[in-house]
């Protein structure tokens, strides 16, 4: 059973490589593998060189890491809230980030400031939910979920308010940010570093995470330090989501769909599920972003539109399959 799972995991590696390659070669200007090879050897068309190394490579790498972060964050939130319908944004984190980003956009700040204040917004939201749920003394998944949902609608109102009072020339940029867009992705080092760090922390904890799925009381009776592990899961998921949102805006559905689909393939063992989430989530977002760049080329769509267009029917199909 478990060996079979690991074989499946190895199959995801060439799939991820294929997705990355597709993302590099396909676009408004197609590049053949031969031309790409020439560029890598320091020769080739200077246009191809700029396209590949300066535009596509950073974007594709950022897309992969963000997709991986969102998928793992989704899987962790589902585990933490014992609710398979949770996603990375369910606790209002994306709302906090969006409020921060829109505030920066509204005040005419540069891209770095937008990212920075999105990150701060996400952090504020995280601490608020965590603090409010802890304050009551009785930390349980339902209370956490309710606190997050209420806070998220509060952020939603703030966002609507800002959209309503913004000058109309700012609106397209804001909407792109709200839907999630990789065109302005600032660097890929931070998301990759976060992704690898989180995988490194979680891999040895995988078995404990499996125990947690039997409920907090049962896990505690099996000798697990439940509050500590749950706190760690929450903070890691929040960190991953904050980084993802900061880089690419609130891209929906990756965090909900990928863990769901993978559970059907891999079963429930978190030691397999989490690395599989990284590979499949990354591949999915790279492919979705490639579509977003090419569908209406030269015009670019926000990638969040594509993930939702793929995600909605895919999720409904998964749900109907589960019922039979």
């Amino acid at each position, binding site marked *: 059973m478990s060996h079979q799972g690991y074989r499946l995991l190895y199959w995801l590696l060439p799939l991820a490589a294929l997705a990355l390659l597709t993302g590099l070669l396909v676009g408004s200007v197609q590049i053949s593998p031969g031309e790409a090879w020439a560029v890598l050897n320091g020769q080739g068309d200077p246009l191809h060189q700029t396209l590949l190394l300066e535009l596509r490579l950073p974007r594709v790498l950022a897309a992969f890491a963000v997709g991986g972060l969102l998928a793992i964050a989704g899987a962790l939130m589902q585990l933490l809230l014992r609710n398979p319908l949770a996603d990375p944004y369910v606790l209002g984190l994306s709302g906090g980030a969006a409020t921060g980003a829109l505030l920066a956009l509204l005040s005419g700040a540069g891209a770095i400031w937008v990212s920075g204040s999105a990150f701060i917004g996400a952090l504020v939201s995280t601490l608020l939910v965590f603090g409010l749920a802890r304050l009551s003394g009785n930390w349980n998944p339902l209370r956490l979920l309710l606190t997050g949902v209420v806070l998220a609608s509060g952020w939603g109102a703030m966002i609507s308010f800002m959209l309503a009072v913004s000058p109309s020339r700012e609106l397209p940029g804001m909407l792109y940010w709200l839907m999630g867009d990789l065109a302005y992705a600032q660097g890929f080092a931070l998301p990759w570093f976060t992704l690898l760090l989180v995988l490194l922390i979680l891999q040895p*904890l995988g*078995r404990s995470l*499996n125990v947690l*799925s*039997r409920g907090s*009381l049962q896990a505690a009776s*099996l*000798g*697990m330090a439940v509050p500590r592990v749950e706190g760690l899961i929450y903070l890691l998921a929040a960190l991953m989501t904050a980084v993802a949102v900061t880089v690419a805006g609130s891209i929906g559905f990756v965090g909900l769909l990928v863990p769901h689909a993978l559970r059907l393939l891999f079963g429930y063992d978190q030691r397999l599920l989490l690395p599989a989430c990284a590979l499949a989530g990354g591949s999915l977002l790279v492919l979705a972003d490639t579509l977003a760049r090419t569908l209406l080329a030269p015009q670019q769509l926000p990638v969040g539109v594509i993930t939702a267009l793929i995600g909605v029917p895919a999720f409904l199909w998964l749900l109907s399959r589960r019922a039979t």
Partner: protein
Amino acid sequence: MKSAPFLELKDLVMDIPNRTSGSPLNFQVHPGECWGVLGPNGVGKTTLLLTLAGLLNPRQGKPLLKGQAIQQWSARARARQLAVLFQQQQDAFPASVLETALTSRHPHLKVWQRETPEDWALARRSLLRLELQALEQRCVTTLSGGERQRLALACLLTQQAPLWLLDEPTNHLDLHHQVSALELVKQHVEAGGASLLAMHDVNLASRFCTHLLLLYPDGSACWGQKDQMLVLSALEKLYQQPLTRLEHQGHLLFFPRI
């Protein structure tokens, strides 16, 4: 001389909301003993088990596990001594039956350690003992209530702790499986373990337990050897229900008088 007790209750008063009084509990659970906890709904049977497991703090006094206060045990070491069967099983996620049983090896493994082939074999043996071997790869969310309860018992067995605390172990089980679940407990106790069971079936408790603890709705309690506890008037007061007492093949049976 009696062996050292697994569990000792010293002036223990449970922390039950809205109950001001409560008589302190003072008794010892020794290896080879099976304690049945009887009492009406809401009297605190589950609270007692959770308190003894170290998952809830008592209002007063303390439970001692092998002579040491339960709260002083590290959670992992405690879980190697004491296993709990909860009244309700939580499983929001579709793990397989075998995977679920394997999670009970947690206290025996270091955090980063993987399950060894012995752990797998042990989990499979427990499933076999509970007649679940054919369902090994089934998803827990598709099991019937009784199958789930048997899986919970298999998990308990896999945990390999000498002291068992069971909250209504016969829940959801058909008559045959009720008896075999209690036979399992009996075997465990006869092999040198000890158990404490919260139960509603007086007749099953009287057949399988060596000692009984009666928790009355007014907060008082009495305990002792089974034969001294099975008194008609005491049980009628316990359940606030007129009962009929029958003797059949040397066993006492109690039925509600309707």
